[in-house]
């Protein structure tokens, strides 16, 4: 075979069996995608360079990059970006670690006790996010909250702590609630990847007298890596967009200490009705997400 012939054969292989009619059948899907994804994105991009207030009779007017320059000098926006990053990465890293640790601990636990333990670990995943938010709101309440009652009963604290009403504690408190509901996702991912490790591989490690840590590091971790990376990406996107928990628990307060980007966009769009400014925030938010996703995919491809 001549040099390059193999590459040429590889490239031409998919083309050989292609039928133009079948290619055309993708078009309806593309049209639907363009309508439900493309239209809102393009519409948001167009609105982001306009001044458009819903409570104003005036038609939208082109303002160029003014919304973006206003955002650059908007302190609340930068607070929201910081809070979003802390909320997202704080949740994902801790939940991924806890989920993986629990999956490893329960890996060899079989029988009814093992099944019950797995069911308990997974159960928070089944609770709707809004219910989680209300649940933790009541747990954290300064007066009448379960957490303060337990801590005071145990003598750990003397007076109730305002978990959600302290500028320094509110965001960590919401992150804890979020970790509670996100950990089962990573537990499921890692548990399924561990069950996919061939017995022969583990058996040969045992034969080679590999210890627990060596088996974990050289065999289990490589199997867990890709599910964790993909899972983290999904959870980063989900937490970037997470509105329900923050809104129900604090509405972005006290002050702006728990205001995330999605909460800020909501306030701008549906409380202040400044759709142009909110769209510009949305564009920046989209770019941040795309950059994060691109970095993750690059990381994933590098691993492959």
């Amino acid at each position, binding site marked *: 075979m001549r040099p390059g012939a193999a590459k040429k054969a590889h490239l031409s292989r998919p083309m050989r069996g292609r039928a133009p009619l079948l290619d055309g059948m993708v078009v309806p899907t593309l049209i639907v995608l363009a309508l439900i994804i493309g239209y809102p994105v393009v519409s948001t991009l167009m609105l982001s360079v306009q001044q458009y207030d819903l*409570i*104003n009779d005036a038609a939208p007017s082109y303002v160029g990059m003014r919304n973006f320059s206003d955002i650059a000098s908007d302190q609340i926006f930068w607070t929201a970006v910081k809070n979003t990053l802390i909320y997202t990465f704080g949740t994902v890293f801790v939940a991924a670690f806890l989920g993986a640790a629990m999956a490893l601990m329960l890996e060899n636990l079989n029988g009814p006790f093992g099944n019950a333990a797995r069911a308990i670990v997974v159960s928070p995943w089944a609770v709707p996010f809004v219910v989680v938010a209300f649940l933790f709101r009541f747990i954290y309440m300064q007066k009448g909250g379960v957490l303060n009652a337990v801590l005071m009963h145990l003598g750990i604290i003397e007076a109730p702590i305002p978990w959600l009403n302290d500028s320094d504690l509110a965001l960590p408190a919401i992150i804890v609630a979020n970790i509670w509901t996100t950990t089962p996702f990573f537990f499921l991912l890692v548990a399924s990847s561990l069950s996919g490790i061939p017995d022969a591989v583990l058996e040969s490690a045992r034969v080679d007298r590999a210890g627990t840590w060596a088996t974990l590091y050289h065999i289990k971790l490589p199997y867990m890596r890709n599910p964790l990376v993909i899972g983290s990406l999904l959870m980063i996107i989900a937490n970037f967009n997470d509105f329900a928990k923050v809104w129900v628990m604090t509405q972005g307060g006290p002050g702006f200490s728990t205001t995330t980007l999605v909460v800020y966009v909501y306030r701008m769009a549906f409380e202040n009705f400044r759709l142009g400014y909110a769209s510009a925030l949305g564009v920046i938010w989209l770019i941040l997400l795309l950059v994060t996703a691109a970095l993750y995919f690059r990381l994933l491809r590098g691993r492959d």
Partner: protein
Amino acid sequence: MARIRMSRRVLMLSAAVFAALPAMAQDITLTFANWATAEATTRDGMEQVIARFEEANPGIRIDSQAIAFPEIGRQMVLRIRSGNPPDVAQIAGNDTFLLAASGGLQALDDYAGETLATLKPGSYAPFQTEKGLVAMPWNQAPAGFWFSRDILKGAGLDPDNPPATIEDLNAAMAKVKEAYPDIIVLGMDTTNRAFSLQSNWPWMRAFGALPIGEGATGADTPEMKAYLGWMRMLAQEGYIDPGRKIGEFRPLIAQGQVAFLWDQVLVQGVIQNASGIDDATFNAQFGVAPMPAGALGSGYSFEGGHQLVMFDKSAQKDAAWKFINYLATDEAAAKLYTVDTNRSIPPAASFADPELAASLDTPVIEAFSTSIIPTITPEPFGPDFATAATAIMAGVQEAVTSDRPIDDIAADIQSQLDR
């Protein structure tokens, strides 16, 4: 034979249907967006009033659309912009002025001309804007300073004489806290939403602060700082429970867990529904007074009543007005819904029905009518109110929940108001 009988029946049925068609064609369906049917405590009363209206007006059917109170303003703005507003909506607070600013409301002057003469002037005056009468008052629900006589007595205070000044209040709160360390001494809404600013506005005014609105002096003023400092003191002393919406305090005061509550007239209904106590017991256990006077020598109140608006896109404006007028002025409707269900005050200046007049002759209504309603201070409602509310209430929350210097917080509020 059977076939002939069948055909006759079909013919008769067809004739009946065709005879009914013109009448059916004249039927009008009015869409009515409201939160009264979305809330358990008011749903039955509202549905009964609607049924009575439909019975009295056979050609008009009401399609009641239940929307939660915090959502209704937002949904109405979006529906105006997308061209499908309802015919009539229940609305309150800044939302009324937001809808008016959006240009989607029908001015009611031509419809309400003679009716207005039968109402208390103060009930409709706030809605007479440069765009005309933008809303019809449905009920009045001003805020008062509620107190639990039992708790005051238990704390060694006079249960018939609540604090008259902020200084008296500070002293009374200290005594209540000492006697009952686990209860909420003062219930007030410190969430970050437009209603919270509406509710806190009279307190700011009591300290002489006027951060926004006509004649505004801004947020970075000694008066606003005094108010923010007082709020911080309330939190630091453990008198308030920050972060709760006003509605969350209502069942608590019914359970004897709140000493003082800054809330609207409808609290009596909530307490009685929650605890099942009769009027006499309620009056023995609870009372309401004007807000304690602040630096300016006066306390204030806010009007939190509900209004009815007609949308200019309504194709059935006469029928819509008939419905609005019925809800706002019909005495049977006022008794069933406004007084008995919503426990608020009808806007009418007088009543022909002695039973309705008697049901309003209570110590609570008396206190509101004679000493609280005269202290109502206008709110700076308008298109910018919600934005200002976000900035101001965020500052209030910061004062309440952090140690950041009050001067910095006030300056931050001002810089956000300036944006």
